[in-house]
C-alpha cells in the first residue's frame, strides 16, 4: 500500500516556520519537516523532545556503580596485591579510573541509544522526500492519505501562501525512517 505525501519546499527559514505555524493552526498534521540545520523553534512547534539526557544519566549511574564494584572486587576481594605499601582498597586511585570509564560507558551507551532510537546506523537507507533538504531547502511533509480533496487544496494553497517555492506530490511504497 503506497502512501501519498504533499511536500512543501521553502527557501527561507522564516517562511518555513510561519508555514508550520499556519498549517498547525488549520490542524493539519505535519508528518515531518526536513531542514539543513537544526532549528529550535521547529522542535517547540512540533513538540519534539529527546529523553537521551535522562538515559545518559542512568547510563552514568550504572557505570559508576559497576566500575567501583569491579575495582573493589578485583583489588580487594579477588586478588589483593600490595603495591608500594598501599592498602588494597586504595580508593583515591580508583576515582580516576571510575571517572574515565564512566565517561567511556556513557559515550558508548548514548551513541547506541541514539542509533537505536533514531534508527540510524551505517548503511541505513532512509526515504528521502526531497534531496535538497540537506542542502538549502526547508521541507514540510504532510501525509495526504486521509485527506480529502478540499483539504488537499487548502493545504497546497496554504503552503504557497506562506512562500513555498514548490509544492510536490510524492508517493512511496514503503517509508524507511
Amino acid at each position: 500500500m503506497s502512501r501519498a505525501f504533499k511536500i512543501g519546499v521553502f527557501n527561507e527559514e522564516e517562511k518555513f516556520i510561519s508555514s508550520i505555524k499556519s498549517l498547525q493552526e488549520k490542524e493539519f498534521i505535519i508528518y515531518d519537516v526536513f531542514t539543513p540545520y537544526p532549528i529550535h523553534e521547529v522542535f517547540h512547534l512540533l513538540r519534539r523532545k529527546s529523553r537521551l539526557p535522562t538515559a545518559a544519566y542512568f547510563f552514568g549511574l550504572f557505570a559508576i556503580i559497576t566500575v567501583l564494584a569491579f575495582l573493589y572486587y578485583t583489588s580487594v576481594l579477588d586478588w589483593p596485591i600490595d603495591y608500594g605499601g598501599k592498602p588494597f582498597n586504595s580508593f583515591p586511585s580508583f576515582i580516576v579510573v571510575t571517572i574515565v570509564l564512566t565517561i567511556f560507558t556513557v559515550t558508548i551507551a548514548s551513541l547506541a541509544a541514539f542509533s537505536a532510537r533514531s534508527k540510524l546506523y551505517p548503511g541505513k537507507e532512509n526515504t528521502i522526500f526531497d534531496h535538497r533538504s540537506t542542502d538549502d531547502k526547508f521541507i514540510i511533509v504532510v501525509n495526504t492519505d486521509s485527506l480529502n480533496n478540499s483539504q488537499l487544496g487548502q493545504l497546497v494553497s496554504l503552503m504557497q501562501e506562506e512562500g513555498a517555492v514548490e509544492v510536490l506530490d510524492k508517493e512511496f511504497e514503503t517509508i524507511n525512517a
Partner: protein
Amino acid sequence: MKKYWKSVEEFHGITVGDNGISEEKHKEEFLELFENGLLRKTSSRRDFFKIFGFSLSSAALAASCKRPVQNAIPYVNHPPEITPGKSLYYATSFFDGHEYSGILVKTRDGRPVKIEGNALSSFNNEGTSARVQASVLSLYDDARLKLPTVDNLPVNWDTLDEQVIKDLSGINSEDGEIVLLTSTINSPSTIKLINEFGTRFKKFRWVQYDTVSYSAILEANLICFGKAAIPDYHFQNAGYVVSVNADFLGTWVSPVHFIPKYTSRRKPDSPGQEMLRHIHFESGMSLTGSNADKRIKIRPSEEKQLLTELYNRIAARQSGKEFQGSAGRYDVSEITESLISSKGKSIVLSGTNNVEIQLLINGINSLLGNYADCIDLNRNLNIASGIDSRVEELVNDLNEGKVKALLMYNVNPVYDYPGSGNFLAGLKNTVVTVNMACSLNETVGKAKYESPVHHYLESWNDAEIIPGQLSLAQPCINPLFDTRSFQESLLKWSGNSLSWHDYLMANWEKEFFQKSDLPDFRKFWEVCLGNGVFSYNISDSKPVSFNKEVLSASINSKVSVGTYGFEVILYESVALGTGLYANNPWLMELPDPVSRHCWDNVAAVSPADAEKLGIITGHLIKIGENLVIPAFIQPGQAEGTVSIALGYGHTNSGPVGDNIGVNVYPFVGLIGGTRVYGFTTGKLENTLKQSQLALTQVHHSMEGRPIVRETVLSRYRSNPSSGNELHEEYELKHRTLYPEVNYDGFHWGLAIDLNSCVGCNSCVIACQAENNIPVVGKAEVRNRRIMHWIKIDRYYSETPDNPKVYFQPLTCQHCDNAPCENVCPVSATNHSSEGLNQMTYNRCIGTKYCINNCPYKVRRFNWFRYTNNKAFDFNTVSDLGKMVLNPDVTVRERGVVEKCSFCVQRIQEKKLLAKLENRTLKDNEIKTACMQACPSGAIVFGNLKDRNSEVSKLFQNPRNYHLLEELHTLPSVGYLTKVWNDEEKKS
C-alpha cells in the same frame, strides 16, 4: 657539611653515549659436545651428561609462543650423587699461578654453575675475588684449546706422547738442556713430580715465571732472612699500616686474603681493639689508596728517598738521636711517631719490585719489631716464586741456543714478557717446544707441540698456599674437550704409568696422612676431599734474624728523584689482573672500582696535568714514541705520573679479549735483574683525537647530598650516631596516611657496612654469575645500559687533587613503600609478604615506568635480546657458554625489566630445606650471592622480623641509615656510616 666538588668530566661535558651496536666479529667454533658424551658406555662419577645439561639450558632459553615438543632424557645408569634439579657442591681450590682461593663449586646436573668461597678455607674465609667468581665462565669458553696439536695440526694424544718422549730422550742423550717454564706452582705433589721428572734428564732446569713479579720481595727476604718468601701480613694484629704503592686490597699478592684481616681491624666498635689507621703513599689512585685514612701522592721515583728518610728517622728516634738527614717533600715525622708508638703492631709495606726498596721495608719493619706479630715469614704465602733474573737468564740461554727443549705450562710470555720479541726469537731457536695452556693465548701456536691442559675445574690438584695449610682440587666435571692435565703429561713423558690422581693420592698418603690423627688413609682422603682443605701445625722456626749489613748499601745508594717528564706506572687492574682472563666477558665488563670504566685500559692522568695539556677524558694521548692510549682524568693521580693497566691489548685470546685496549707489557723495564713496572718519559702529547670510553659513572660528587654518611673515629667514640644525625630526624618525621603493612614471619633485609666495604667488586661478578646477568658489550655500556644488578658507586669529596673516596654498593633497596610498584600498569612488580620487591619478568611489558620512578635507578632493562643474538656474542650465544647459566633463574627476554631479587631462589631453596627438615630457618642460613662472595663481610642478609638476627642488630646500630630515607620509601637495605680513622677536617 663538607664542600663537595663537581667532577672534572662534568665540566667538560663528556659525552657518554653513542648508538649502534658494536659488530663484534663472531668466531664460529664447532662444538664437539655430543660426540663423546652421549655414546659413552660407562657413566662414571661426575660424568657430565651433556645432553641433559644441554636440554635444560636450552629449555631455559627457548622462548616461543607455541611450545615445541620437549623431551625428557633420563640417565641410562644414574650416577648416585647427582639428583636432577638439586645442586651438588664440590670443595676444591683455585690457583692460577697468581691468585689463590679455597672454593666450593656448585654444580647442577653435572655442570659447574657457580663458585662460592669455602668457609673451611681459613685463607680466604668464604670470600672470593671477582676473578675467582668469573673463572667458572672460563670453563665454558669457546676459546679454550680443544685438542692436542703438533705443528698446529691436530693429533691424538698417543702420537703426541710418542713424539715428545722421542724428542726429549733424543735431547737427553745428546746432553741437551731441558727447561720447564711454569707459572708459580704451590702444589706440593706437582713440585715433587717436577723434581722427579727433572731427575730423569741429565740437564734439567725448572724456571717459574710470574706475569707480575714479586721477585724483589723474594730476593730481599732471601738477603735479609735467608728465605725467599713473601711473608703473610697480619693486618688484624696491626694498629698502624703504612703502605707504599702496594694495592694490597686490590691486586697486590692476595687481596682476598688481606681484605678480611684488614677490615676486621677497621671496625670502629670492635671491643678491645683500636681501629687500624692506614696511611698510603702512591701515585695512581688504587683501591687501597681509596680506603686509606690518609693518602699521600708521591711519584714512583720518590719512594726510595721517602723510605730511606723514614728508616733513618725511626732509627734515629730509637737510638735517641735527632734525625740528621735531609727531609723530603713529605713530612714523615708524624708517621714516624705513630709507627714508633705502635711498635710491633704496625706494618710497613711496599709493592715496588725493587730489591733496595724491599730491603728498606724489611729494615723498617725489623726496627719496629713487626716480624713478631704482624709480618709472618714462617707461615709465608706461596703465591709467587718467580725470580726475574732466572727468567732473564733463560731467555738469554734460549737465544744462545743453550736450551734444547722448552716445556711451558700456564705461561704466556709472548704476550706478557717485557722482551717478548726476544723470547719469541729464543723460542724459535729451540728445537723442542711444548706449550701446555688451557685457553687460547698469544703463545699458543708458537710452540711445536700444543698439549692443552684441563681447566682447573676439570682437574685434580693440590696446593700449599701457606706452609701447613693444604688444599685439594678435584674435578667437578668431566673434561669438556680432549685435554689432559699438565701433571698427567709430565707423568706420561717421564714414563710413569701412574695416573695423576693416583700419584696425588700416593703423595698425600706419604707426606700428609701421618700429620693427621685419622686412622686410615681412605678416611683421611675422604675428609680432605670433602673439606677441600687440610692443615697441620708446622714447627715455629726460630725468630728470624735480620741481616743489617745489607741495608747500608741500599740506604747510601743515590736515587735521582724525577723532577721532569712523566713517570708511567703500569699496574694490574682490579678486574682483569694480569690479563690471564682477558677473554672472560664478565671481567671485561666489570668496571674498575675507582675509575668506573670498563672494556678498555686507559692512561690515568692527574687533573693538573690534564689542564696543562688540554686533555679531557677520552682524548688519545701519545706517551713516549709509540704508546697511544685514551686518557682518563683520574682525581688523586700524582702530578707528573700516568697510570696504565696491564693485561689488555691481547691479539690472540679469543673473540672477547682481542684488540681491547693496549698491551703495555712491552713497556715493563728490566733493570738490574728485576722487572720494573713503569718507565719515565719526557714526552706526552695530546693527539686531540677522541676515543669513546665505556664509563659507567660520569658524575663523581655527591652534590652535598647525604648519600654516603661519614664521621671520624673520635667523633664516633663520643657519639656513635655522629654523621648520621639525619637518620633520627627523618625517622621522627615519617608519617603515613595509610596503615603500616604488618609483615608476618619474614621480612628480608640487607645491611651494608660502608666501613668494611673496600669496593673490590667481587659481589658484582658473584651476582652476575648467580642471576644470569647478560654482558652487553662496550657500545652498550657507553649507552649506559650495563646490566649489573649490584654496582659499587664511587664518590669523591674534597679536592680533585687528592680526593677522599667512598664506595657504596647499590642494589635494589626493596623498599616497603616502593615507588616503582605503584606505577607498573600490569602489576609485574609488587610487594611480597616477606618484604621483597618482586619483579615478574613474564608479566612485564616493558613500559620502563618503574625504572624512571625508582629514585635509586637500580632497575635494568633488556634493551635488546641478549641471548642467542649474534650482536651480543659473549656467553649467551653458543651452547657452550650457556652452560654457565643458573637453571634456577629465568633468562630474561628482550623488553623486560629486571633487578636484584635478593637472590629469591636462594631464599626459596633454604625455606624449602627447612620445611623438609621440619625446623625453623637459622640466621645466616640464607646468603645472597653478594654476601657470600664478599671477602670483607660487609654485606649481611637476614630476617628483620627476627630481633636476634645479625641484620636486625645492624639495623639497630646507631650507624645504620637508609639511602634517601627522606623519601619515605622505607628501604629494606641499610647502610652503616663510614668511619674514618682520621682527625676531623677543618672546614
